[in-house]
């Protein structure tokens, strides 16, 4: 999943630095992720993992770092399994 997220980030993130240089915990907004790019990233993740983000996950915190995105996607996948 980490790789898939990094791949999407490289494609739509529009970051001024290479994705390989960003650690899993690094704040993506501070690294230059714009709100427009973050939405493109969310759309890409919805498509890639066949999930939908409900409003509770649509905030800065869920997308603050690669690790946070992983946690968010895992939480949604788990919710879907439980349902």
């Amino acid at each position, binding site marked *: 999943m980490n790789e898939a997220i990094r791949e999407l980030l490289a494609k739509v993130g529009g970051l*001024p630095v290479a994705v390989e240089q960003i650690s899993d915990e690094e704040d993506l*907004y*501070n*690294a*230059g*992720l*714009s*709100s*427009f790019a973050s*939405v493109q990233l*969310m*759309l890409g993740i*919805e498509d890639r993992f066949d999930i*939908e*983000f*409900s*409003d*509770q996950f*649509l*905030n*800065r*915190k869920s997308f603050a770092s690669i690790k946070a995105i992983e946690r968010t996607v895992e939480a949604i996948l788990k919710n879907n399994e439980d349902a």
Partner: protein
Amino acid sequence: MNAGAGNSLQQRATRVAAIAAQFADNVDTQARFPREAISAMKAEHLLGIQIPADLGGEAAQVEQIAEICSIIGQSCAASAMIFAMHHIKLSSLVEHGQSAQWHRAFMRRVAAEQLLLASATTEGGIGGDLRNSICAIEIDGDVCRLEKNATVISYGTEADAILITSRSGAEAASSDQVMTVFVKDQYTLEKTNGWDTLGMRGTCSEGFVFRGAGSTEQILPHPFAEIAAQSMLAMAHLLWSALWYGIAVDAVTRAQSFVRAAAKRAPGVQQPGALRVAEASNMLQMLKSEIVACLNTYRHAKDDSDKLASMGFAITMNNLKVGASQSILQIINHAMLVCGIMGYKNGTPYSLGRHLRDANSAQLMVSNERILGNTATMLLIHKQNTSLLG
């Protein structure tokens, strides 16, 4: 007129509004700072009301401040806008500065000395996109220095302190910002742009090169991204909408008096403007309901940082701003149709020129185009809440 026991916030605001009304036309014609109204706000101790009681304030809530914006907005929109902008800046300190010793001490000073706060978020080369900065704060031991080409600092020369955004350091990305408080004796302002505008002329929103130096303690301890998302944008849209509502209320009041006076002169005859007043009253009610609903939304979200940071909340506040700024123009235009030439002319009891000119700023100050673009992006991913009450 000093604040005394038993004086409600509303009564104090009403006294300020009476003074603001006396000078509103002169402030507008001369494009000058509304010093009489701002002195009255200080005399009534209205500049510190938002500050918690243990720091010398009155812990006023956003809806109480919004009510004051509306009351003063009915008299002089520029004075109300200055009051609103001051409290928007103060909210950054109240919501995000209470953990820091320097900012607590500064809030005590704001309450005790009734200091007026200004904002410097726009920058040459960036325009109105306040979430990006070119300039960077320079940190040298305990000292911080900042030079910013601030294209707009409303009432900059009249303020006692300026809250200013910048990148957090020389290496930081443009969106990695901090906000710093500089007090008057710590900065110089070199004027670069004047303020000869259609409306809101009394806000004196001139451009300056800001050069300041202070202690690193003066940098707010939370990233500006958090401050903007969690309090500043919501406070701005709520307080602005409240004072815009005030402008519209006064316009409709004038139109209503016009029709009433005509009805008295010609009893039994239906006045042509009467239906327009009814329509304006309808639009005014919808605007009021929207503002009150959004004030409640903010109040309920305030203690839940997840909710404040959610897209749903941001979309709600964006919609309030766009909607309010558009509807006041329609409402004032209706009032103009009612009052006719007496509304169009300056210096009559029904004059609406200033209202209409001031109201035109609403769709531009943070451009609706930018806000709609931002909402449009969020709506690509955000799912519509389809319930009526939820």
